[in-house]
């Protein structure tokens, strides 16, 4: 069923991660992404892995949910790991059988790659999609980008477009499912037949769906005008976001992880050593 797609789905809850300010979560996610890309030594990867594990455990998201969200990238993960193992030709030769040669570096690169992808996906999805409601996320984004409004960027409009789009994803998904069911009840076969036949079957869904999306758009616009919507200027928020002390602690923790990752890299270690030797 369409509703089974969990990638990018919010799971309501009240864990410590859920309670972090969305702006901080956005910053933390950016920091974690940067950290995964600068990490290169084993220690730095271990550090990142532990940090992600802590985030995940604190969020109280079930392993099953996370695994379900990972499904789409499993193939890419296996594919890249495979390439790293079999096509890296540096380091010591570990294993040889006819044309297959496995080197130590291949194994090491593969493990690093694997951790990098896992950490990247887990940390961002735990911080953002699983624990932050889409509305909170766009609110946070709008607040963060507010300074850009001064140079004429329509930040509010973009945020509104985004939150409306996000708001209507479940509605349209539900509608898609309903229309699909209704057409199935009229004998539409979505899963067998030639490509043309299936495309024709989908037409029975797309036409009503498009009509309904337009209807929603008109209704929403009317409703907004009736309630006095005139754009972003002078508009106040119902829920004013306030940064708490703990939010700064979280940001500090994320920054510490990034600093730790950089410090543990062989390159930085060399630089530090060089400085002392001088």
């Amino acid at each position: 069923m369409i509703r089974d797609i969990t990638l990018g789905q919010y799971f309501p809850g009240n864990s410590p991660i859920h309670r972090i300010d969305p702006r901080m979560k956005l910053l933390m996610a950016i920091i974690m992404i940067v950290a995964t890309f600068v990490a290169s030594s084993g220690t730095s990867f271990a550090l990142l892995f532990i940090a992600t594990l802590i985030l995940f455990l604190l969020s109280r998201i079930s392993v099953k949910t996370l695994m379900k969200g990972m499904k789409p990238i499993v193939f890419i993960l296996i594919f890249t790991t495979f390439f790293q193992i079999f096509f890296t030709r540096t380091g010591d030769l570990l294993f040889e059988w006819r044309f297959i040669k496995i080197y130590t570096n291949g194994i090491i690169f593969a493990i690093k790659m694997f951790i990098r992808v896992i950490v990247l996906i887990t940390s961002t999805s735990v911080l953002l999609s699983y624990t932050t409601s889409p509305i909170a996320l766009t609110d946070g984004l709008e607040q963060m980008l507010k300074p850009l409004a001064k140079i004429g960027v329509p930040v509010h409009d973009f945020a509104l477009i985004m939150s409306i789009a996000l708001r209507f994803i479940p509605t349209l998904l539900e509608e898609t499912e309903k229309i699909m069911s209704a057409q199935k009840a009229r004998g539409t076969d979505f899963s067998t037949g030639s490509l043309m036949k299936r495309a024709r079957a989908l037409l029975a869904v797309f036409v009503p769906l498009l009509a309904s999306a337009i209807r929603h758009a008109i209704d929403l616009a009317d409703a907004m005008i009736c309630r006095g919507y005139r754009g972003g200027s002078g508009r106040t928020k119902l829920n004013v976001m306030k940064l708490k002390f703990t939010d700064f602690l979280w940001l500090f923790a994320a920054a510490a992880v990034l600093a730790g990752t950089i410090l543990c890299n062989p390159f930085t270690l060399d630089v530090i050593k060089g400085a002392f030797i001088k």
Partner: protein
Amino acid sequence: MPIVFDNVSYVYGENTPFEHKALDGLDLTISENEITGLIGQTGSGKSTIAQLCNGLYKPTSGTVTVDGVDINADKKKRRDNFFRVGLVFQYPEYQLFEDTVEHDIAYGPKNMGLDDAEIARRVADAARFVGLEEESLSKSPFDISGGQRRRAAIAGIIAMEPKYLILDEPASGLDPQGRDDILTKLKNYQREKGIAVVIISHSMEDMAKYCDKIIVLGKDGVYKYGTKAEIFADPVALRGIGLSVPQITKVMYKAEQLGVKFERPLYTVAAAIKDVLKMLDGEARDDT
């Protein structure tokens, strides 16, 4: 053979935080050759039952049998169930998509693999039953009125000539005249074809007027199943599960408390008018 639910449970979003039990151990029988009304509060699982009847939903546990066959037993025969148990969804007019009303009504029969002559006959038949005029058949479904669209959508299911016809709120959102019109046409259709029709509705008036039997759904399963007289005999209990009896029954109930005796329980305005007139007539004769 009727549609039989045996100990059917249905859970939405199993194993997710959104898990929600819609039905729990439901037993239910829908008889042939009559109109069954399915009534219950919002969230009592009416629409879920509708989609279990034709196999769009598979019960989490329990079985649904139609004509003595478990409809979920053979995956390959799934489509046959759709044709045998016609289901008209809520607001079915939003599923119209073909370029003309005629083509849209023909969509179901075409999926059944019928030949052109048979399809043409069925389309004409279905259009006649729901009262669609010749000229609107060649129009785009987006160009006709809301009431006409509703008719076209219902005709689309009728054209498949199902043995069972289930309609989820077929009259919702229509004006009173449109309501009566569409429901009367459905009743005529049922009487002519002798099939089983299930109407899901919130309106006790509609139930009283058009249904032979009524199923009342409570919080956990079927609260009561029976004829109008059996269902509306206890207005207090009905109110207890958030439902009510037809307004005219309430009026007559009050009148009886004031000492006016009627020969039979009354559920429709038409019958009430008849009885009241008869009574007045009798009184007039008594005076002379």
